[in-house]
């Protein structure tokens, strides 16, 4: 599975709407993307990667595309 598909899956699962999140989704465009959802996204990424994200990485997450970029780079 590519990084974009993995990002969509992680964010969809975190926001309890699996399959409904596309690569173009952003925190400002998805109603379910609230603070608890954001925490679940970070936790999902750290589970996927097997290590904690850095401060800069956490602070940079505002979109599914950014999640994909981080998954690709890490």
């Amino acid at each position, binding site marked *: 599975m590519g990084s974009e598909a993995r990002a969509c899956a992680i964010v969809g699962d975190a926001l309890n709407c699996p399959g409904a999140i596309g690569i173009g989704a952003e925190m400002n465009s998805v109603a379910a993307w609230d603070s608890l959802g954001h925490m679940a996204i970070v936790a999902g990424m750290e589970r996927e990667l097997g290590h904690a994200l*850095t401060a800069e990485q956490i602070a940079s997450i505002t979109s599914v595309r950014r999640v994909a970029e981080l998954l690709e780079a890490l």
Partner: protein
Amino acid sequence: MSKLVIGPLETERFILKPMGMLEALRVTNRWRHDPDILNGLMQTSKPRSLGHWLLRGPLPRTRNRFAFAIIPKGETVPIGAHMVRLQGYRSAFGTVAVHDRNWWGRNVVVEARARLMNHFFAHCGVERFYGVVDSRNVASIFSYRRLGFDHVGTWHRQKQNPVTGEVIDFVNFEMFRDQWVKGPFWEAPDGQ
């Protein structure tokens, strides 16, 4: 800076009621023993004494620190509080906590902070809001990014949690007035 008088502010779901020292102490007193809130505000779950809270807690001062109770419309009991501290150089800093867990994950902070930023940018000469957040306080980071704040820097190994020993990084956010008024949360006051 002369004394500012601020009346209650209204959002879609909340009344932001200005509080004096005694009321703010009453509303936030439980925070001194709430590990989740203490971790968010002070990066430790160690309970705080009343004396410490009076000196270092998020309480109002006459001229430059303001506290607002966050009260759902139609109710009387605050679910949290938001403080704003004005600096003499036209910057402002906010501190917020929602102690009612039923409201977590419901964008309370985004809604309340947006209203306060509109007010302070419009009426109080503020040119910049900034925030300094524990990098593991993901909920707080979310609220800053959701409001459009820029991540402008990181302090690495800035503090240590005295309870867990964890070394903590901080992330810095800022938002300038001219940037805010172009964004989706700006609501121009009458006559502007």
